[in-house]
């Protein structure tokens, strides 16, 4: 035993060391792991948010304290002390009452549990025995007597209990009486301090107290932590994972803690309140969080709870830099869905609102979609819900009678040299067709295009020659009459509309005869035009013509048209022929064509190539399909499917579409592409705002599953409303009118130039409840001004019956009018009432402003509509509402309220016993009588 030999194959000492160190490392790892988990960013955000809430509550508490009326508070404290003092003299009485109360409580308890309840149980038992005995045919007389006597006894007990309870109530009342003063004062103090107490409770709730530390302590926080992941599960809006649909789970509020809480509008991110709580996220909003969530609009990975993995995408490079520093942000890679940069979020509205004509609360998107139509994007690119609309450019069916060939060549060669604000995009002299060879080829194409257009144009001649006109007066009429609601012109900087062409250089384009004829009757040239008739006198039309003809671009006039080389043309023709006939065949074919045929051939090929018919009506291309890629769900197209070429752009949708709009041809850079295969999308020369609007609209075109019941505009009256809204958009009604409180764009000029807005075109906010449908229909069919003294006036549109009916239906349904929207006039005034109403009408001096039949008011600047038209024009209910509170129906109305609300006090109390409601109805009935009598 002397020397023990360790025969184990290992050295236990070394091993102990290894164990020691490895267990230490393991321990550190575990601690590290626990710490990492405890310290996750979202947990820290929640702790920070508690602190924020607490500090805000502390501030609010200070404010609440400063709002307290301390004079009153001190008085209440004195009252309380006094009341407490008074109570001292009643101590004996109170003690006695309290004793009495205790005694009574005891008696009541006894009466209930010792007397009443056992007896009640006995009765139930006996009743059961009685039934059993009866069933078995036994004699039950005795039992019945017993039950009866028990019931009598129970009645006595109940009476006893009732008496005791009454005594007890009396004691309570006596005590309350004695204490009433103190309790009243206390109640008053509590009422005064209600806010203060609430905030104190809020501060306590958001303090890191003992319970908070225990529940959220490391290792214990798996039990019942207060800091935890928050989420909404959206069963109706599944996420598409290519081959499977899963429930959408949004956890954004785990960090964005105040997204649905008011009061954090200026808090630092991620704790800011949603900027439109009334519309989104809020429980009473149209898009509540539990139904809509976050990612359906914003995109991103809803289940992630880390800044980078949830795929935040910055607005711009500056924000990217900031995020990198602050959150260690990295550009999302390989994720299912990235967030839309905030400035493009409106695009997501299309997921549910795509079938709607305009959305109102998404002005950028509305503008983007409008531009996609008016700038002609949808002429080449098919876009769901934007199909079958009026073409963006003018019809070229009669171009021969409108424009000179030379003008067309110069214009198409470089539209901006004619007018920088022109909407025609630039096809030529772009980055991929500006080398000498391409320049020669494009010149040949252009020449042939124009030859084709003129060959395929019907004849047209203006039917009238313009009389001499005054440029100065024309300029005035042009500005005042309403042309600016659709057209822009460089003489007016306070407002620039782009619904119709900019006319800053129109004198270099058209002949005076054409302009004059066109202004007087646009349909003479184009029966399908949307341009209305403005009902100008011949002199006014001549003046406007003189003004417009003075708007010339001299530099453009002096430029010469590009010269085409017939040899280049022939080469181009051969490139088209070769694939069909081979090299020699192509030569033979070409040789068989004369000069004219060659021009026509290349013209036709080039028109097809550039897709000109997408925007213009061209003979021979009536049924041609747009040449661009369909964009209906472009926003969900895989980034990998987009050809970024050799550009150093970020590989994102927004970068691609931005670049495409900035310079569509840049993707051909460095590539070897045959001339006819090069990118053809023209440059639209968009300003940054318009570009952003279009990008918003394009990014919003996605393929996302949304259940039918969440789609807007397809339920109930939706489709009927949309029909009307389509007419409104197509004819630019909102260029002048506020409709659904949006639009009225010409008002911008009134505001900037400080012109009284009540002289601007009216707000049509309550038109459906205001205007009788018969009158409405006649008016739209045959416009006559309501306020003839205004310079700006509603023009005469050439609307179909269907358009008119759609618009009237729209206005009526919008205002909850009941089909068939007809007006029934019932009011009749007795002789006495009529006398009173006439006197009241005179007293209120309505005719100080309102015209009456042919009478013209003394001061045109304050004149108001003809009262003799009321009976046929206005709905009776509306007249009464209008009289009561014009401001409520039409903000900024000049009509004053004679019965100021909410007092509803009449300024003429001598009539109808001062009954305001009756007075208004009588006035209404009088106006309806008057109109009919005349």
């Amino acid at each position, binding site marked *: 035993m002397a020397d023990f030999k360790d025969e184990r194959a290992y050295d236990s000492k070394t091993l102990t060391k290894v164990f020691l160190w490895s267990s230490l490392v393991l321990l550190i790892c575990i601690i590290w792991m626990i710490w990492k988990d405890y310290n996750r960013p979202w947990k820290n955000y929640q702790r920070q948010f508690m602190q924020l809430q607490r500090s805000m509550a502390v501030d609010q508490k200070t404010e609440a*304290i*400063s709002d*307290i009326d*301390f004079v009153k*508070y*001190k008085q209440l404290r004195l009252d309380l002390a006094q009341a407490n003092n008074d109570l001292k003299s009643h101590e004996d009485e109170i003690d006695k009452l309290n004793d009495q109360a205790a005694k009574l409580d005891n008696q009541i308890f006894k009466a209930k549990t010792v007397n009443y309840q056992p007896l009640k149980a006995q009765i139930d038992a006996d009743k059961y025995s009685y039934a059993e005995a009866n069933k078995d045919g036994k004699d039950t007389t005795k039992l019945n007597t017993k039950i009866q006597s028990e019931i009598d006894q129970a009645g006595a007990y109940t009476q006893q209990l009732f008496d005791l309870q009454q005594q007890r109530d009396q004691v309570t009342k006596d005590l309350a009486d004695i204490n009433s003063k103190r309790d009243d004062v206390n109640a008053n103090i509590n009422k005064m*301090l209600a806010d*203060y107490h609430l905030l*104190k409770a809020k501060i306590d709730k958001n*303090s*890191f*107290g*003992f319970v*908070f*530390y*225990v529940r959220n*302590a490391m*290792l214990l926080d798996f039990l019942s932590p207060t800091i935890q992941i928050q989420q909404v599960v959206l069963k109706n809006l599944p996420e598409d994972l290519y081959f499977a649909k899963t429930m959408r789970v949004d956890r954004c509020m785990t960090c964005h803690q105040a997204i649905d809480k008011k009061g954090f509008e200026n808090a630092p991110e991620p704790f800011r309140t949603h900027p439109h709580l009334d519309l989104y996220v809020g429980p009473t909003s149209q898009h509540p969080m539990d139904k809509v969530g976050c990612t359906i609009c914003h995109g991103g990975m809803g289940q992630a709870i880390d800044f980078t993995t949830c795929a935040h995408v910055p607005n711009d490079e500056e924000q990217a830099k900031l995020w990198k520093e602050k959150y260690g942000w990295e550009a999302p890679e390989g994720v299912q869905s990235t967030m839309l940069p905030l400035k493009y979020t409106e695009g997501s509205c299309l997921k549910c609102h795509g079938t709607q004509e305009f959305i109102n609360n998404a002005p950028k998107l509305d503008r983007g979609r409008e531009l996609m139509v008016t700038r002609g994007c949808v002429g080449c690119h098919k876009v769901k819900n934007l199909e079958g609309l009026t073409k963006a450019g003018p019809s070229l069916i009669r171009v021969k009678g409108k424009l000179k060939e030379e003008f067309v060549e110069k214009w198409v060669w470089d539209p901006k040299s004619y007018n920088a604000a022109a909407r025609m995009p630039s096809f030529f002299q772009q980055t991929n067709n500006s080398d000498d060879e391409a320049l020669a080829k494009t010149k040949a194409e252009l020449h042939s295009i124009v030859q084709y257009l003129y060959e395929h144009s019907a004849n047209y001649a203006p039917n009238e020659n313009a009389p001499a006109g005054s440029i100065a007066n024309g300029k005035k009429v042009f500005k005042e009459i309403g042309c600016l609601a659709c057209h822009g012109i460089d003489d007016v900087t306070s407002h620039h509309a782009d619904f119709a062409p900019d006319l800053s250089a129109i004198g270099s384009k058209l002949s005076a005869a054409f302009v004059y004829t066109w202004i007087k009757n646009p349909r003479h040239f184009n029966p399908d035009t949307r341009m209305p008739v403005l009902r100008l006198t011949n002199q006014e039309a001549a003046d406007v013509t003189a003004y417009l003809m003075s708007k010339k671009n001299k530099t453009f006039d002096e430029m010469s048209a590009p010269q085409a080389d017939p040899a280049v043309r022939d080469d181009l023709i051969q490139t088209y022929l070769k694939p069909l006939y081979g090299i020699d065949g192509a030569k033979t074919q070409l040789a068989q064509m004369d000069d004219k045929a060659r021009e026509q051939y290349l013209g036709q090929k080039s028109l097809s190539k550039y897709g000109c018919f997408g925007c213009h009506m061209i003979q021979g291309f009536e049924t041609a399909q747009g040449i661009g890629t369909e964009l209906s769900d472009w926003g969900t197209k895989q980034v990998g499917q987009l050809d970024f070429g050799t550009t150093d752009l970020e590989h994102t949708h927004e970068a691609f579409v931005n670049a495409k709009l900035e310079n569509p041809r840049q993707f051909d850079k460095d590539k070897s592409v045959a001339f006819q295969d090069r990118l053809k999308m023209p440059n639209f020369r968009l300003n940054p705002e318009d570009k952003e609007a279009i990008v918003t609209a394009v990014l919003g075109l996605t393929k996302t599953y949304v259940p039918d019941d969440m789609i807007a505009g397809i339920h109930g009256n939706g489709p009927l409303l949309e029909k009307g809204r389509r007419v409104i958009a197509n004819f630019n009604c909102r260029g002048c009118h506020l409709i659904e409180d949006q639009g009225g764009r010409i008002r911008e000029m009134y505001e900037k130039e400080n012109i009284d807005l*009540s002289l601007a075109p009216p707000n049509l906010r309550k038109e459906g409840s205001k205007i009788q449908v018969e009158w409405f229909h006649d008016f739209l069919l045959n416009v006559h001004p309501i306020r003839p003294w205004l310079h700006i006036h509603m023009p005469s549109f050439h609307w179909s019956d269907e358009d008119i009916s759609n618009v009237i239906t729209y206005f009526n349904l919008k205002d909850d009018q009941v089909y068939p929207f007809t007006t029934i006039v019932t009011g009749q005034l007795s002789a006495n009432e009529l006398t009173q109403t006439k006197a009241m009408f005179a*007293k*209120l*001096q309505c005719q*100080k*402003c309102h015209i009456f039949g042919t009478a013209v*008011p*003394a*001061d045109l*600047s*304050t004149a108001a509509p003809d009262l003799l038209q009321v009976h046929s024009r206005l709905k009776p209910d509306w007249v009464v509402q209008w009289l009561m509170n*014009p*401001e409520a129906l039409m903000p*900024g*109305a*000049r*009509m*004053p*309220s*004679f019965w*100021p609300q909410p007092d509803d006090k009449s*300024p*003429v109390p001598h009539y109808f016993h001062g009954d305001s409601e009756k007075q208004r109805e009588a006035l209404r009935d009088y106006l309806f009588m008057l109109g009919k009598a005349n």
Partner: protein
Amino acid sequence: MELKKILTLLAVAALLTAGCGQKSEDEELMEAANGAAKTAAVLGTASVSGTVSLTGKVPGTALFSVDADPVCKAQHTGMVKDETVITDAKGDLKNVMVYVTDGAGSYPAPSASVSLNQKGCMYSPHVFGIQVGQALEIVNDDPTLHNVHCMAVTNDSFNVGMPNQGMVTEKKFTKAEAPVKFKCDVHGWMHCFAGVFTNPFYAVTGDDGSFKINGLPAGNYTLVAWQEQYGVSAPQTVAVKDGEAKSVNFTFAAAN
């Protein structure tokens, strides 16, 4: 063992933090009550006065006709002077509102009301100041219809018809706002302006372009002048001690 220790420590820490520095409700409120009494806005004894004048070519007085309404016509002989720009021979500007934009506290509204008259189809005064919460008494002295159309933006706008002579309408403003335009839609020429302030430190210049603001507590103040044609002047700062009377002048440049 370890855990228990940590927990105990945490508990003690939590209790300490919870217990420390907590005032009772009564203490907190009484402290605030005493503090509030000290800081309550009190008028001072300093004053600022001066003159507002127009440099450059003084425009001639514009005239307009009020003949559109016979009632108005009867109260004037011939054309009526436009009140947009009124100067004396030296170019001193009438109807300019001078007020403190910075440095003054909030003061409770005085019980006396401000009166706005419609007489001879003109507003009188043409420019006036009023405090938040102070009553504005609008009177129609004319035997014709007027409507008082207040075009306030921050405050609630209103538009009241006043068909009777002697009729009075009372209104109050709830927020500071300057200028607030009033107009009559029956008589296109009628308009006037109010300034709504949270303190009484404002004045409107008289015929000689002079103004005086009294009752300023010692302190530093920023003042501006506002004129309906020329807008708001550049701000000027002034420091006053108790009892001191300082002078500040404003000028507007006439458009040539």
